[in-house]
């Protein structure tokens, strides 16, 4: 098997850049790069321009990808201006170009039969879920969605995205939108109500861990898109590893950019930030 089999590197043009709540919704003219993009895949973008002191790419989940349209292939992102690199990106004007490598990483697995699916997103983690919802809907699935964030402005839930969602539930920690609390506070209720058979999630690692706990307790398959600091995004640097069980149950430090970002939640050893879980293959004695 090839690694990064579909990845293309290209200079792509900003077609649109709009502020939406705490985020920037950005559209890029990417040509053929869009052809193989699937929900869950991500892009890696060089930031800061030719004399940048930021030497590493930034990773962003693909919000939507399209091959048709007036501008040929397009890829859309939802960008949170977090540190200096994402801030730079969010400040790009229409017609400017950025260097992009995509599509990268694994995609969400699509069930062959129609099922009841629950999609859970935290913050900009909702981005890849709308494209996923569309596909699931088109395959006859029931799609429920929970989006959570600290506050209303940090929930990304565009109108057109909601089309494919049966019931959308919002949670905010400050209660400024939807129910006050966290996504896991409403999760079990919805699992029961909608007889959920499959969970997808994307968001910060602590949220994924909490979702995974509920999923395991409810014995529901859980695919999550993990997030670990990445230096390269293409599998060559080994910085983005997380401990995951392989087929035979052995815990190995595996690259989230190649084996992930979408992984089977049951494989992930959550809560192992800053330590190697006991029993990991090759762990220091």
């Amino acid at each position: 098997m090839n690694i990064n089999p579909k990845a293309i590197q290209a200079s792509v043009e900003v077609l649109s850049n709009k502020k939406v709540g705490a985020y920037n919704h950005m559209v890029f003219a990417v040509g053929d790069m869009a052809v193989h993009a699937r929900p869950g895949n991500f892009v890696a973008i060089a930031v800061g321009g030719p004399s940048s002191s930021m030497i590493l790419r930034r990773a962003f989940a693909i919000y939507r990808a399209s091959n048709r349209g007036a501008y040929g292939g397009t890829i859309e992102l939802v960008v949170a201006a977090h540190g200096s690199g994402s801030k730079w990106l969010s400040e790009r004007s229409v017609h400017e170009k950025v260097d992009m490598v995509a599509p990268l990483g694994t995609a969400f697995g699509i069930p062959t039969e129609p099922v009841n699916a629950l999609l859970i997103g935290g913050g900009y983690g909702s981005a890849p879920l709308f494209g996923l919802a569309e596909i699931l809907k088109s395959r006859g699935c029931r799609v429920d969605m929970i989006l959570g964030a600290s506050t209303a402005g940090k929930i990304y839930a565009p109108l057109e995205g909601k089309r494919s969602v049966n019931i959308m539930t919002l949670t905010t920690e400050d209660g400024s939108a939807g129910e006050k609390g966290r996504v896991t506070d409403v999760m079990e209720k919805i699992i029961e109500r909608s007889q959920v058979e499959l969970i997808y999630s994307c968001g910060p690692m602590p949220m994924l861990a909490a979702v995974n706990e509920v999923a395991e307790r409810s014995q529901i398959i859980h695919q999550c898109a993990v997030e670990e600091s990445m230096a390269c995004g293409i599998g060559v640097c080994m910085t983005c590893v997380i401990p995951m069980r392989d087929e035979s149950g052995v815990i190995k430090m595996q690259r989230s950019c190649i084996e992930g970002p979408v992984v089977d939640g049951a494989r992930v050893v959550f809560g192992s930030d800053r330590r190697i879980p006991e029993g990991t293959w090759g762990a220091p004695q």
Partner: protein
Amino acid sequence: MSNFQAFDFRTKFGSRYFPSPVFTASGCAGSGKELSQFFNLDELGAVVTKSISVKPRSGRATPRMAETPSGMLNSIGLQGPGIDQFLEIDIPWLQSKGARVIVSISGETVEEYASLARKLRGVSSLHGIEVNISCPNVENRGLVFACDPSASRAVLEAVRRNIGGDYPIIAKLSPDVTDIVAIAREVISAGADGLALINTVLGMVIDIDAKRPKLAGVTGGLSGPAIRPIAVRAIYQVHKALPQIPILGMGGVASGRDALEMIFAGASGVSVGTATFGNPTAVIKVKQELQEELKARGFNSLVDAIGVAHA
């Protein structure tokens, strides 16, 4: 006249020739498979593998990296499958793609280096071995081999003794020493054919929100353009002291101009590491640009350019 002559881009380390002087840097090209989507591996002078150990290693916990101004810190901790699986899977795959392979090795004791050398002795199709001595010596309070002249010597002697007489050995040195020329002399007299300069510089970033070191491993290795002036200085100093010894230069090379700086300082070749993280095709870019920069300056061969800044 000279315009009609073919440009000779070859370089030599020990007994081996390489068609071009631009290599990957150890630990910065995965298994090779990840980059082969972007270009053919036989376009490289050589693939230098990540440092391989006797046994499998999980490496360090995460976070393993921090970006710094024009650089980055890493604390991978030599994650890898161990030499046996590596010889069985990785090497044959690389060679099937026509890549010239230099295997980087790392150990925690002199005996581990010796044992790795014995395993590699049989693989005569390799283009060389790079001995990464920037590893903690468990038999001496974790003091890094490369920071101790006699430990450096012991490793290189053990490797040479076990791998055989004409197998090209490149010793990779750490810049974190008071006198890099002294270490260079030790490893050369112990049997190394060439030197790789430089490994990462020990650094650290504090996460001011979490109020603790950013990396789980506390300290990490600084790489990227930030350290290039340190690398160029090390290459220049060592080439001046040991002009006959081929040097593989590295540390922040991201363009042909960067590579040329190292060649002029005395390097016979360069490795591209961190630049690949920002640009998957960085190695190819460096190779093409270096050739152009050399030609633009009237050189007919790479060899003529090595060390010219010393004139």
